[in-house]
C-alpha cells in the first residue's frame, strides 16, 4: 500500500446532558477525549467541544478523516460526515472495551437503553425515553434539590444500611418526597440509596425485556455512579462490568464506526477525500417552525 497521510477519526456524542468527543487514530489509540456539559448554551456550541478535542490531539480539523455524530443531538451536527444512532455507537464502543459483552445497559441523561450485542454488533435493543423517571435526569434533578454533586451520590449511598422506598414515580414529586423524608429525619444515605434503587429497578425491569446474557456491561454517564452500579447489580442478581470511563463509550463507538466506514471505502477504492466541512455552530430546532 502506498504510504499516505495518517488517518484520524472523531466521534461526537451530543447527549442531552453531556457532550463527549473522542478522537482516535488508525491504531484505535485514543488521541483525545473531552466531555462537557451539554447545557442549553453548549448544545449550540458543540463545535467548541470539538475544538478542545482537536487541541488535545494537537490536530487541525482538516486532518480528521471522518467524523461520526451520535446522541440525542446527532442530527444537528453540521460538521459530521454521518450520523449514527447512539444505540449502535454504544454497542460498538462497549464491545471494543469488553469483547465478551452480550448485553449492555446504558443509562444517560434523557433515556435508558438495553442493548443486545453479538460479536460486537448490535442485534436488538429496548429503550425508554418518554419519562424522566429511570434516567440520569432523575438523579440530576434530585441531587440539585439536595444541593449535592452528582459525583458524590454514589459514595453517599454506599453507606446506607436501610434504603427507603421512594413511592412517587414522577421525578418532580419524588424530589418533594425526598425532601420530606429527610425532614422526617431519615438519614441522607438511606434516601439516596432509595433513589438509586428506584432508578435501578426501573431500568433493569426494562433491560429484562431482552433476554439477558452475560457478560453484562453497564455504561452511560449514570454508570459513573457507584451507588447505581451496586443497585443494578443487585437487581440483576449477577455480575456487571463497568468501563473505566463509561461516559465516552458512545463517542468512542462513533469514532470506531467512522474508522470502519473509512476503511471499507478505501477497500472499495473509493476516495476518503473529505468533503468540505467546517466547524460551525449547532442549531437544535428547526428555525422555520
Amino acid at each position, binding site marked *: 500500500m502506498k504510504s499516505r497521510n495518517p488517518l484520524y477519526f472523531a466521534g461526537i456524542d451530543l447527549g*442531552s446532558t453531556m457532550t463527549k468527543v473522542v478522537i482516535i487514530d488508525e491504531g484505535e489509540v485514543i488521541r483525545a477525549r473531552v466531555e462537557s456539559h451539554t447545557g442549553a448554551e453548549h448544545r449550540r456550541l458543540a463545535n467548541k467541544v470539538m475544538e478542545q478535542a482537536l487541541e488535545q490531539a494537537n490536530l487541525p480539523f482538516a486532518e480528521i478523516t471522518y467524523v461520526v455524530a451520535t446522541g440525542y443531538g446527532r442530527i444537528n451536527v453540521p460538521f459530521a460526515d454521518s450520523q449514527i444512532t447512539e444505540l449502535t455507537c454504544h454497542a460498538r464502543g462497549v464491545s471494543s472495551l469488553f469483547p465478551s459483552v452480550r448485553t449492555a445497559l446504558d443509562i444517560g441523561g434523557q433515556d435508558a437503553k438495553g442493548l443486545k450485542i453479538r460479536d460486537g454488533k448490535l442485534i436488538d435493543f429496548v429503550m425508554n425515553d418518554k419519562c424522566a423517571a429511570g434516567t440520569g435526569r432523575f438523579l440530576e434533578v434530585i441531587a440539585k434539590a439536595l444541593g449535592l454533586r452528582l459525583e458524590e451520590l454514589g459514595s453517599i449511598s454506599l453507606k446506607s444500611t436501610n434504603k427507603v422506598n421512594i413511592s412517587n414515580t*414522577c421525578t418532580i414529586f419524588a424530589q418533594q418526597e425526598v425532601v420530606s423524608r429527610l*425532614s422526617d429525619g431519615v438519614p441522607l444515605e438511606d434516601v439516596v440509596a432509595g433513589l438509586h434503587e428506584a432508578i435501578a429497578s426501573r431500568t433493569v425491569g426494562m433491560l429484562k425485556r431482552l433476554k439477558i446474557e452475560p457478560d453484562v456491561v453497564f455504561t452511560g454517564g449514570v454508570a459513573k455512579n457507584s451507588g447505581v452500579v451496586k443497585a443494578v447489580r443487585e437487581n440483576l442478581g449477577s455480575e456487571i462490568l463497568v468501563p473505566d470511563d463509561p461516559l465516552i463509550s458512545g463517542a468512542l463507538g462513533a469514532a470506531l464506526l467512522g474508522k470502519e466506514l473509512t476503511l471499507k471505502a478505501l477497500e472499495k477504492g473509493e476516495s476518503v477525500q473529505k468533503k468540505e466541512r467546517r466547524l460551525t455552530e449547532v442549531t437544535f430546532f428547526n428555525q422555520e417552525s
Partner: protein
Amino acid sequence: MTYFMGIDIGSGTSKGVITKDGELLTYHLLPSGVNYRAVAEKLREELLAKAKLSPEDIAYTVATGQGAANVAFSDQQVTDIRCCARGISRIFPSVRTVIDVQAQSSQVIRLSESGRVINFVVSEKCAAGSGRFLEVIANVLQIELKDIGVLSLKSKNPVAFTTGCAVFGESEAISRVAEGSAKEDILAGVHQALADKISALIERVGLEEGCAISGGGGLDVGLIKRVEEKLGIKLLMPHQPQMVTAFGAAIMAEEMVQLAG
C-alpha cells in the same frame, strides 16, 4: 358559636379559612413545607389571630387536602374533591363543573345544584399535568409565579412542546431560551400543553354550562385563557381560587354541625 374552620393542607401550599354564618370571615395561606403538622398549627394560630378569636370559638373544623391526616385539631377529614365542590357552589351557585388545578394533580368535578359531587376525574400523578409544571418552567425563566399569566397572554407564537414530561419540558424550555425564543412564547406553550391535558379530563366527565376554575391554577390568567380557547367557553373565576377548597371545608364543617344538631 357560629365560627367554622376549614384547613386545606396541599402539597405546595396550605390554606385555611374561618367562616361566620356561612360567610368568609378570614383566610390565610402558608407554604406547606415538609412538616404538615406544624404548618397546620401555624395556620390555625394565624387565622385565629387575624379573626381575633380563640380556639374555643370554632365550632367545628374540617381538614382536607393531601396532608389532612396531619391536622391534629380537626374534628373531621373530608376529601378535597368534596370540599372543592362545596366551596365553589357556595361562591357560584350556578356552577356545574369545576376545574381544580393543584400543584400535584388536576381534577375536574361535576356538581349538583347543592354542591354535591356527581362525577369527577383526577389526572395521573405526572407533573406534566399539574400546576407543578408551571412552577418548574417559571423557575427556569426566573419569573415569579404571579407574573406568568399576564406575560403568557402577550404571546403571539406559542412554542409547541414536543415532550409530555415536565422534566424534559424544563430542558426544552432552557434550550428554547438559548435559541432565542421569547419567554412569553415558552409560557404560552406550557399553558397550552396543560390546557390540552385538562380538556382531555373534561371530555371524560362531560362539560356542562357553568364552568369554574379553582386551585392555584385559577390564579393564572394565561392558563385560563388557553383553557377557555380550547373549550370554547368562558370560565368563572373566584376572587381567591386557591382558597376554594379550604372555604368548602369550612362549609362542610358547618353542614356537619347542622346535621348533628
